[in-house]
């Protein structure tokens, strides 16, 4: 048995154990027929709030996933639609950021002057929590949708910018010399030598960025509201529907994992061995 197979089996065992314990420690909700009048009045609530058991979440997940795309007004949209909104915002903000970060990072990596001139700004702007920009964005842009996209833009720009600059600056001089001895123009050198040489580092930056963007969108949508998976979590919390909250947490995790896996694929395509 290979290590991979063993690891898979162990993962499943861990999952089953954890779910089993969770299920067992969650007291079952008593049947409404056996309730006292007071209990019925209180909606069957016990003194302490209970986290729903995994079985309830499975049922909920099945329900939601079997009909992911429906729209019954602002407070009741299918999980697929909510995820779609979130992905739309993330990808728009992300690609706008890439549009600026990649060329600018290239410039900073190529020119020590540009690096020195822009470094102080990057160092100050980078540690700012993207959500801190939200009030300013809302005030200036005056549109909650665009503000959410802006927050994604601002949070995904830094890792891409820094990694691109780092990757470009770190291209082995021997390779640049190969380009020089072959009389390549600067444009051709940039695209045929420097870009492929720096691509693995650039892709690392892009992968970090998409991860951060997906983290931030949930918080941003909790603030802006209306649509999206972040809004969905918060809305279900307001509805006191913890089953939906836990279900959407899982969905956020799975989507994030898929996004990361996509970039891992691209990354391995541009990876090379020296």
């Amino acid at each position: 048995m290979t290590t991979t197979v063993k690891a898979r089996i162990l993962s499943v065992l861990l999952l089953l154990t954890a779910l089993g314990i969770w299920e067992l420690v969650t007291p079952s909700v008593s049947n409404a027929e056996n309730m006292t009048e007071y209990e019925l009045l209180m909606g069957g609530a016990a003194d302490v709030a209970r986290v729903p058991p995994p079985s309830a979440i499975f049922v909920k997940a099945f329900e939601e996933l079997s009909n992911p795309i429906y729209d019954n007004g602002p407070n009741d949209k299918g999980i697929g639609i909510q995820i779609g909104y979130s992905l739309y915002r993330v990808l728009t903000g992300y690609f706008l950021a890439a549009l600026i970060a990649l060329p600018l990072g290239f410039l900073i990596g190529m020119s020590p002057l540009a690096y020195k001139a822009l470094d102080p700004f990057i160092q100050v702007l980078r540690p700012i929590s993207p959500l801190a920009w939200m009030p300013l964005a809302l005030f200036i842009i005056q549109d909650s949708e665009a503000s959410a996209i802006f927050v994604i833009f601002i949070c995904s720009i830094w890792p891409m910018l820094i990694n691109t600059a780092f990757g470009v600056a770190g291209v082995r001089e021997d390779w640049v010399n190969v380009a020089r001895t072959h009389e390549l123009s600067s444009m051709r050198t940039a695209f045929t030598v420097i870009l492929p040489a720096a691509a693995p580092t650039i892709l690392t930056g892009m992968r970090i960025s998409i991860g951060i963007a997906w983290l931030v969108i949930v918080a941003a949508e909790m603030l802006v509201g209306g649509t999206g998976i972040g809004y969905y979590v918060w809305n279900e919390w307001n509805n006191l529907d913890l089953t939906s909250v836990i279900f959407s947490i899982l969905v956020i995790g799975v989507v994030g994992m898929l996004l990361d896996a996509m970039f891992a694929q691209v990354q391995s395509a541009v990876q090379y061995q020296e």
Partner: protein
Amino acid sequence: MNKKPLLSIQNLTTRYPSPDGGEPLTVFENANFDIEEGEFVCIIGHSGCGKSTIMNVLAGLATATSGAVIMDEKEVRGPSLDRGVVFQNYSLLPWMSALSNVIFGVRARFPKWNRKRIRDHAYKHLDMVGLGKGTEKRKPSQLSGGMRQRVSIARAFAIQPKLLLLDEPFGALDALTRGTIQDELIRVWSKTGQTVFMITHDVDEAILLADRILLMSNGPYATIAESVVIDIPRPRKRADIIHHEAYYPIRNHLVEFLTTRSETVAAEDKRSGELNRHPKTVRPGIIPKQAVTEQDNPTLQFTRDIPTYSLDNGAPI
């Protein structure tokens, strides 16, 4: 010489500024030498004498502090496809296959050629160094060190430069591989008549390959001390040349220079700062008394300037 040399190095000097603002470090000073068209010239010297710096200046990747490099009656400024370079390592782009690396060079050299012609030209040169039949699709990391250098050599020959610069191309290879690739290089070189300038540390390699070996004294203030003509007829074979009568006189001369004289020559020779001083030509391969008796010996066609060189103790070589 009636003909202008292909390449002429004139009073080349490189100094590096010292980090604390003191005396600059003079790597080499007033180096002068010529390379004729079709010639294979090796340069030997200890580490730190500035061989690689000279190479980088010839390639146009570095500029000398003073002096000039003239090629085809034009001063060399910046890199050019007229001077192909093979570095010791890393001259292949690791994200491209062997074939694409050669195509990269061909496309840069002949931008007007169509796809097929570029490809055929690349294949021809890969075949020339014994690669092809599947190996050309591999990335450099999937090739052995020897194969990688073969690809570099194929690319360099494929761009058909006027001057091919080899910077210790076999330095990182084991002795056996080095031997085969030297044979490969000789074969390709004799077919193309390419002018080659090569740095090496290996005396035997230099004798095998070169028409002429330039000896550099130790740095700082290094200079080109001698130009040793290798009077061994071609085609040369590794197995045969060691039996040639000129082999050991030449070899001893080179080793003796490297072990003792390379150090003292710069210190003794106060003329190293002199302008336009060409290295003296030495022919340890021609043994004087034979030169008189065996007129028909093909190795002795250069009798017009029989060396007057002798060892420090006065013994003839």
